[in-house]
């Protein structure tokens, strides 16, 4: 039997790693991957909570995970399309060089 705190710790660790990746890396593609990792971390904690607060059958957390996966897929599709069209314009996927609105 695995305590729910273990899942929460794993979730927090993975979320922090993803957050560090978003803050450190400048490649837009890697930043996107880190966002996906953060979503996965949250999913783990959602399912763990759904199993821990079990009053009868409770699948709300699981259903929520399904929706999170849906939104993550949509976000990946649109985000990668933005990256593709952006790299056609500026020939770079570096987040530091995409500063059209700065001037």
């Amino acid at each position, binding site marked *: *039997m*695995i*305590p*729910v*705190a*273990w*899942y*929460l*710790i*794993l979730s*927090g*660790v*993975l979320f*922090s*790693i*993803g*957050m*560090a*990746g978003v*803050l*450190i*890396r*400048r*490649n837009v*593609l*890697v930043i996107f*991957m880190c966002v*996906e*990792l953060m979503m*996965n971390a949250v*999913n*783990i904690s959602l*399912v763990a909570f759904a*199993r*821990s*607060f*079990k*009053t009868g*059958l409770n699948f709300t957390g*699981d*259903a929520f995970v*399904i*929706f999170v*996966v*849906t939104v*993550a*897929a*949509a*976000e990946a*599709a*649109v985000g*990668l*399309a*933005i*990256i*593709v*069209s952006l790299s*056609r314009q500026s020939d770079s*996927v*570096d987040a530091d060089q995409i500063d059209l609105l700065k001037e």
Partner: protein
Amino acid sequence: MVLEQIIFIVLAVLATLSAIGMISMKDPVHSALLLVFTFFNLAAIYLLLGAEFLAAVQVLVYAGAIVVLFLFVMMLLQVRPGPSFYKLRFFQSRIGPVVALVFLVEVLLVTFSTSFALNGGKITDSNNTQAAQVAASVRYSTEGVVPTADATGNTIGGSGIGLHENVTTGHSALLGKELYSTFLYPFEIASLILLIAAIGAIVIARRSLEHDTGDENTPTEVGRGISLAAPLPGSPQAIEMERLIKSTRNAKDEDRRVILKK
């Protein structure tokens, strides 16, 4: 039980290490592959949680679809390896990990200071009269009895599967029932989100037509470069096409074919 915990620890350590490797790899392709490895470990953790359908979705959607999409985009863009971890600016390379570490400490503090502490795996919240065990690997299938034959006599599994009444069903059937009953409207909205995202991705990533008419399709000789697709109005192809069509209007069919073939 101890075996379960050992498996969890191994999976969690592997997932954490590969996630750290993901954010520290120079080449984005290596990052993507390590991300796949992380996702597989997380799928196994879903199995430990008793969520088989979510494990399958994890492998299919995340490792199978999203990461492959990433790899395809990298192939299209020919992404060069970025600047390494240590050549970045001060704020990015020093302050970023510190901020993430502070966040991690906050999460751990909250985890250990609330009722989810590691006190034998019980929820100590007194309001929870259920006093449900914090059984992460809950054996819900022994109590998750779904009547497979409802009032109309239709069985879920159809005929010939061997399902009989009061058979214990797994995670997928229960989650499907929940999605199509309680979460019906959110489910439909999710499908709408996917549709909008697909259309939006096509619209955003499409090469705009004005950019395209320039280089490779310009006819170098008269009569060359005619494609069957309709050219843009006003472009050289369209003018050429109109001229050809006018000149062949009165010709016989064989002549027209010959001219168009040129």
